[in-house]
């Protein structure tokens, strides 16, 4: 499949990249390319300009700074599940990185690229030929969302593996833009709007991911349920962070909503309590009840809800096993 035509830039620093993006607001940023180029081949994204940021030096690093861990935007996923700093302090993040796509995707794909991936839906991630049997969906440039049969709204699901693992360890992201750099909690980076899932100006580039040192005090895990272990996007992915000493917990899910979501109800219930099987079951029921999955894939919302609960219980068991080691 030939890619649609585009104008191509390879800036050598972030400033130059931002300048190009300012001039070309419809441009797309190319990093690993494993999400964007597939969408371009399917003609659901046809940017007139591609800005390849991979020639920018010093965006591939994992380093410790005053105890916090800083990860460069272009750090390949493969490196994240091999780096001892990550594996020892944030095993959930390493688990998520090794769960993304196939080994090849982990070699090519970057952390920031994975965070910024497009939302997914069975009416959107299809070939032009497949999609031609019905009017284009709202996300692909049409008027209607076929998931809910409503106009000018998009219910595509966010399906990234890295985001939930970062949500539970309270990660922050740094954006480089025309007015310099700014930081925000990763939770605020996702809009909840399926059509434009990221809260980001066109000329802003995600440059760094920062994990606070306090998050290393708990045990983190990520458990993914997918059609095939080898390559698929999650049907549901669950991340858990547990500080058993302080009895504080954080829970997040992917692929169940238009953005990666925190399981606030489950957290409120669990905080201050022991991680017993009964408490895990009750928390799982609360999380599943609060979720709003829709039929964006071949898996039904009720199946996703059930899997959310089971995965959370599995994550709790893993946390307990690890803390007893």
């Amino acid at each position: 499949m030939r890619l649609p035509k585009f104008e191509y830039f390879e800036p050598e620093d972030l400033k130059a990249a931002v300048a190009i993006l300012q001039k070309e607001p419809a441009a797309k940023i190319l990093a690993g390319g494993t999400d964007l180029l597939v969408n371009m081949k399917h003609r659901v994204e046809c940017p007139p300009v591609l800005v390849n940021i991979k020639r920018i030096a010093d965006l591939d690093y994992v380093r410790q700074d005053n105890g916090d861990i800083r990860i460069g935007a272009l750090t390949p996923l493969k490196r994240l599940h091999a780096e001892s700093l990550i594996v020892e302090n944030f095993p959930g993040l390493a688990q998520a990185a090794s769960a993304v796509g196939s080994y090849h995707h982990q070699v090519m794909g970057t952390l920031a690229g994975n965070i910024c991936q497009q939302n997914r839906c069975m009416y959107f991630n299809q070939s032009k030929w497949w999609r031609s049997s019905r009017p284009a969906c709202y996300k692909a440039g049409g008027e209607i969302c076929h998931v809910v049969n409503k106009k000018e709204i998009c219910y595509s699901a966010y399906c990234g593996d890295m985001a939930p693992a970062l949500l539970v360890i309270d990660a922050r992201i740094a954006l480089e833009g025309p007015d310099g750099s700014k930081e925000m909690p990763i939770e605020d980076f996702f809009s909840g709007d399926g059509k434009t899932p990221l809260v980001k100006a066109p000329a802003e580039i995600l440059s760094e991911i920062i994990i606070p040192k306090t998050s290393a005090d708990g045990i983190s895990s990520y458990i993914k349920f997918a059609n095939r272990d080898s390559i698929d996007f999650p049907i549901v992915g669950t991340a858990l962070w547990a500080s058993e000493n302080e009895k504080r917990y954080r829970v997040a899910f992917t692929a169940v909503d238009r953005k990666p979501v925190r399981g606030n109800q489950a957290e409120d219930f669990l905080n201050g309590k022991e991680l017993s099987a009964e408490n895990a079951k009750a928390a799982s029921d609360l999380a599943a009840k609060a979720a709003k999955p829709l039929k964006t894939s071949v898996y039904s919302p009720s199946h996703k809800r059930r899997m959310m609960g089971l995965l959370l219980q599995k994550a709790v068991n893993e946390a307990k096993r690890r803390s007893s080691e």
Partner: protein
Amino acid sequence: MKEAIELHINGDTYELLVSPNYTLLEVLRDKLGLMGTKRGCDLGACGSCTVLLDGEACLSCLMLAVDARGKQILTIEGLAEGGDLHRLQDAFVKKGALQCGFCTPGMILTAKAILDEEPHATEDVIKHKMAGNLCRCTGYKKVVEAVMSVAASSGKEV
């Protein structure tokens, strides 16, 4: 607009004029006639188009040719040296680890990337990392056996 690029493939340097929207796979097959790299799904889901870029297993269907500038590219054509099959190629033949052979170039190159990094990789590691290379006919048992036979006997770079 076409760009003049240099690609280093199998130890040779090629000067080419390519449009930025050409993938590395298209350039290898359609412009250079290196047909060993296979076009399978063309969407990064099957692993048939795997080539090594600076020793790392990459999907050439999801890589712009202009983006491969400055990297050492290894395709299946560059693996045998002086008419002698590479140890992995030899193992695939001896173990009968192929049927139609379409997925074989991608399988062998992925295996090479794995064993170059971890010469004594365990069966679990090999299975996990090669899971993105799909075979539609013969199955995976003999493929794993072939790679394991090289892993078990290797003491240095494959």
